[in-house]
C-alpha cells in the first residue's frame, strides 16, 4: 500500500496538534495569558511548516490528478490572512476577556481550531474536504460567539449563529450532492471538465445546485440577503470574537468561492455571475445604507463588514486572475483595518463603561488624541480614502471589474463606496467635532497596543507601498 505524502498538510496537522496541546495545558497553567502566548507559538510552528508544504496530497488511485488537498500559493496567501487574523485577535482578547471575566484557556484553543478549519477550507481540492473544514470552522465559532456564558446577548448570538449556520451547511450539502449526482465526483478540479459537458451544462439541476452553493457561501461571507444573522451575532458576541469572525470566516468563504466558482464552475460563469451580480449589489446596498442608521458601533461595523463582502465579491465576479488577486489583496488589507477598528472598540471597554455605543466616542480626540487618530486612520481606510491601504484595495477591485468589462457595476459600487463615507465619517465627527460629556477610561495593555501598531503600520504601508503586496497577490492567484 502506498502512503500519501503528508508534506502538504503538515501545517494543518501541526496547528491542530498545537490547539490540542493548548487545550490540555489549560488544565495546568493558571495564568491564562500564557496560554494566549502558547497559541501564538502554535502559529509560528504552523508557519514554519508552511514554507516547505507546497504540493498536493491524497491522490486517488484511479486518477492521479484527483487530489483532495492542495497546498498552493493561493491557499498559502489565505492562510497568512487567517494567521494575521488569529494573531491580532489573540492580542486584543487578553485584557478584554479579563474585564468580561471570561478569560479561559479553551478560548484560545477554539480560536485555533476555527482557524484550522479555515486553513483546510482554503486548501481543499474536494468539496467533501471543503465541507469538513467549513464545519470545523463553524462549530468552533458558534461556541466562541456564546463564550460569555452569563450574558444573554452572547447566548442569543450563539444560538442564532448556530441555527442559521446549520441551515446553510445543509443547503451546501444538498447543492454538493446534486453536483455529485450530475457528474459522479466531488473533486473540484475534475468537476471543471465534467460541468462543461453539454448534458450537464444544460441541466436545470446544475442551476439549482449552483444556487444552493451560492446561498451557503453567501451565508458564510454575510452577503445580502443571507446577512440577517450578522448584526445580531456581531453585537452579542464578545468583541474580540466579533473581530475574529468579521475577518476569518469571511476570508475563508471567499477562498473557497474563488476555487469553486473559478475552477469547478468556470464553464458556468455566465449563469453564476448573473446570480452573483445582484447579490453583490444588494450586499453593498444593504451594508452601506443600513449602517447609517446604527447607533451601536459593533452593529455598524457588522453592516460595514457586510458591505465589504460585497466589494470582495466583485473580484470573484470579474472572474479573472486580476480579480482574484484584487480580492485577496482586499481581504488582507481588510483584515488589518477591521481588526484595528475593533481594537479601538475594545480599548473603550472598561470595567465601568460598555463602550460600544457611538456616543461613547464623543470627544475622544480631546481625552485621548492618539486613540482618536488611529481610529480616524482606520475609518478613512474603511471608506477607501488614500493614502491608506483601503483605497489601494478598492482601487484594485474596481480596476479588475472594469478590466473584465463591467463598467456599470464599477460605477454602482463606487457610489455605494461614497455613501459609506457618511457613517464612517460620523465616528470621526463624534471624536473630533463634538464636546465630551464624560471622560472615558481606556483599558490599555501592551498586547492591545502592539495590535494597534501592527494594524496602523500595515494599513499605511499597504497604502503607500502597495507594490509588494500586489505582486504577491498576482503571483499566487495563478490557480486559474
Amino acid at each position, binding site marked *: 500500500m502506498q502512503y500519501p505524502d503528508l508534506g502538504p498538510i503538515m501545517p494543518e496537522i501541526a496547528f491542530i496538534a498545537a490547539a490540542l496541546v493548548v487545550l490540555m495545558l489549560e488544565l495546568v497553567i493558571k495564568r491564562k495569558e500564557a496560554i494566549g502566548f502558547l497559541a501564538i507559538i502554535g502559529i509560528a510552528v504552523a508557519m514554519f511548516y508552511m514554507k516547505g508544504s507546497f504540493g498536493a496530497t491524497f491522490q486517488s488511485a484511479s486518477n492521479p490528478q484527483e487530489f483532495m488537498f492542495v497546498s498552493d500559493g493561493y491557499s498559502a496567501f489565505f492562510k497568512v490572512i487567517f494567521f494575521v487574523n488569529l494573531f491580532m485577535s489573540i492580542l486584543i482578547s487578553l485584557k478584554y476577556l479579563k474585564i468580561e471575566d471570561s478569560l479561559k484557556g479553551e478560548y484560545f484553543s477554539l480560536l485555533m481550531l476555527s482557524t484550522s478549519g479555515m486553513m483546510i477550507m482554503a486548501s481543499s481540492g474536494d468539496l467533501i474536504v471543503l465541507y469538513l473544514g467549513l464545519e470545523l470552522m463553524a462549530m468552533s465559532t458558534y461556541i466562541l460567539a456564546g463564550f460569555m456564558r452569563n450574558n444573554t446577548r452572547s447566548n442569543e448570538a450563539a444560538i442564532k449563529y448556530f441555527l442559521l449556520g446549520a441551515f446553510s451547511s445543509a443547503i451546501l450539502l444538498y447543492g454538493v450532492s446534486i453536483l455529485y449526482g450530475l457528474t459522479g465526483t466531488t473533486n473540484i478540479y475534475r468537476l471543471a471538465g465534467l460541468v462543461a459537458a453539454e448534458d450537464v451544462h444544460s441541466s436545470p439541476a446544475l442551476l439549482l445546485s449552483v444556487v444552493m452553493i451560492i446561498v451557503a457561501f453567501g451565508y458564510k461571507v454575510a452577503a445580502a440577503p443571507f446577512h440577517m444573522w450578522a448584526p445580531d451575532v456581531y453585537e452579542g458576541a464578545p468583541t474580540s470574537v466579533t473581530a475574529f469572525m468579521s475577518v476569518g470566516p469571511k476570508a475563508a468563504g471567499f477562498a473557497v468561492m474563488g476555487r469553486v466558482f473559478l475552477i469547478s464552475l468556470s464553464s458556468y460563469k455566465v449563469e453564476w455571475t448573473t446570480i452573483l451580480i445582484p447579490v453583490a449589489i444588494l450586499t453593498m446596498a444593504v451594508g452601506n445604507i443600513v449602517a447609517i442608521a446604527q447607533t451601536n458601533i459593533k452593529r455598524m461595523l457588522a453592516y460595514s463588514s457586510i458591505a465589504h463582502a460585497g466589494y470582495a465579491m466583485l473580484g470573484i465576479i470579474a472572474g479573472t486572475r486580476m480579480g482574484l488577486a484584487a480580492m485577496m489583496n482586499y481581504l488582507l488589507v481588510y483584515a488589518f483595518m477591521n481588526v484595528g477598528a475593533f481594537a479601538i472598540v475594545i480599548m473603550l471597554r472598561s470595567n465601568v463603561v460598555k463602550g460600544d455605543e457611538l456616543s461613547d466616542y464623543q470627544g475622544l480626540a480631546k481625552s485621548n488624541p492618539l486613540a482618536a487618530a488611529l481610529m480616524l486612520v482606520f475609518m478613512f481606510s474603511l471608506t477607501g480614502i488614500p493614502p491608506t491601504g483601503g483605497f489601494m484595495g478598492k482601487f484594485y477591485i*474596481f480596476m479588475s471589474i472594469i478590466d473584465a468589462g463591467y*463598467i456599470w457595476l464599477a460605477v454602482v459600487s463606487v457610489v455605494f463606496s461614497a455613501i459609506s463615507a457618511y457613517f464612517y465619517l460620523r465616528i470621526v*465627527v463624534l471624536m473630533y467635532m463634538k464636546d465630551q460629556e464624560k471622560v472615558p477610561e481606556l483599558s490599555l495593555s501592551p498586547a492591545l497596543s502592539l495590535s494597534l501598531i501592527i494594524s496602523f503600520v500595515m494599513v499605511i504601508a499597504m497604502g503607500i507601498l502597495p507594490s509588494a503586496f500586489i505582486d504577491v497577490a498576482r503571483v499566487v492567484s495563478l490557480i486559474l
Partner: protein
Amino acid sequence: MELGYPILSTVIFLPIIGGLLLLLISRANESVIKWGALAVSIVTFVVSLPLFTNFDKTTHLMQFTEGGPHKWIAAWNIHYYVGVDGISVLFVLLSTLITILCILISWNSIKDKVKEFYIALLMIEGSMIGVFCSLDFFLFYIFWEAMLIPMFLLIGVWGGPRRVYSAIKFFLYTLVGSVLMLVGIIVLYKQAQTFNILEMMSRSYPYKLQLMLFWAFFAAFAVKVPMFPVHTWLPDAHTEAPTAGSVILAAILIKMGAYGFLRFSIPMFPDAAKAMMPVMLGLSVVAIIYGGIICLAQTDLKRLIAYSSVSHMGFVTLGIFAFNSQGVEGGILQMINHGIVTGALFLCVGVIYDRTHSRVIADYGGLATPLPVYAGFFLVFTLASIGLPSMNGFIGEFLIILGGFKASKLVGVLAATGVIIGAAYMLWLYQNVFFTEVNDKVKDLKDMNGREILTLLPLLILVFWIGVYPNSFLSFMHVSVSHLLEKVNYGASADMNLAQIFIDLIR
C-alpha cells in the same frame, strides 16, 4: 531648466514631513508649534521660488520633471512622476505663498487643538502642490483625495457653528464626484495601458468614449470648481470654515477643478470638449449671473464672498471653454486673480471676525472711522474683485469676456452683465460695512496690527503687479496655452498676444 536638486518633490514633501515633525512637539509648546509651522511654510516658499525665476517660458514641455522611469507600483504601471508646465507652475507658487498667509492669520485666532491645526494645514499644502505637479494620473488622484481628510478636519473641527454639517457636505459632494472620476481614470487606463498623463494625452480616443469620460471627469471637476448646479457645498463650507480654511478653499482648492479641466478634460478629450462647449458656456453664464444675484441678497459677510466665488469661477470656466487664447489665458489668470483677491477678502473678514466674532453685515457700519488702514486694504481688494482697471481683476475679466465674445456674442454680453452685478454687490457690501453711521459695536475696535498688515501686503502688491504688468505672469502660459489650443482646434487657432488685444481695443 534643471536645478541641482529635486525642487518639486521638495516642495511637495517638505510641508508633509514638517507636519509629521510637528507631531513630535509637545502640545503645551504652542509657540514652538506655530513658529515651526511658519518656518516650514516659509522655507517651502523660498524653495519654490526658482520655479518662478528659472522657468523656461519658450516651451510647452514639462519642466523640472522628476522620477520618470522609477516605478512606484510596477504591477499597474504607475510611476512617481512630477513636473510643471506653464499652466500649473503659477498655482504651485500661489499655494506656497497662501499657506504662509494662512498660518499668519491663524496665529491668535486658533486656540483649541493648535497642534493638529497646523499639521492639517501643512498636510493640505503638500497635497495641493502634489495635485498641481503630478504627471501620473494615479498619483494625481492620490493627492486629490488625500487632501479631503485634512480639509474635512479643518472645516469640521475649527469651523463656525454649523461646521459639522458643512464639513460632511463638503466631503460627500467631493467624494461622489471623485469616485466617478476614478472609474473614468481606470477606463482610460484600460485604453491607454498607462497612467502617464503625457502618454495619455498623446493618444486619441473614440468619440463615444471621450464623451463618457468627459462627463465622468466633469463630475469631479465641476464639483470642485464649483459649477452650477453642484455649487451648493461651497457657500456652507466657505462660511463655516475657519479663516485659513476659507482662504485655502477659495484661493487654491477650487482652482483644482478648473485646473483639472485644463489638464485632463480638454487635452485628452478635445472632440468631446468641443461638442460640449455650448453646455459648458451655458452653465458658466448661469453661474456668473445666478451667483451674482444671490450675492445681492446675503446678510452674512463670508457667505456673500462665497457666492461671489461661484460667480467668479463662472468667469473662469467661461474663459476656458471659449477655446481661444484670450479666453484660456484669461481663465488661468483669473484663477490666480481670484485666488489672490478672494483669498485676501477672506483674510480681511478673518481680521474683523477675530475682533467681533460676528459675520453679520448688519452688525457693522462706519468701520472706516475706527479702522482706517483696514478700510484701505479692504477697498483695494473690493475694487480688484469688481475689476477696476489697473488692478488684476480687470485683466482677467477683460480677457475672458473678450474670449467669450469671440466664442459667442450672447455669452459675451451676458457675462459682461455679471461684472455689473459684481460691482453692485461689492460696493453695497463696502458701503454697509465701512460707511454709513458708526455702529456702537465697532467704535472701540483697534486697527490692524503689524502681523495682519504683513499678511495682506503680499496680496496687495500682487493685485497691482498683475494689474499693471500682467505679462510677467501671462508670459508663463503663452506657449502652453497655444499648444493646448492647437490640440483642441487642430492648429486652426488664431493666436493673439496681449499687446495686440490692447491695440485692437484702442482702435
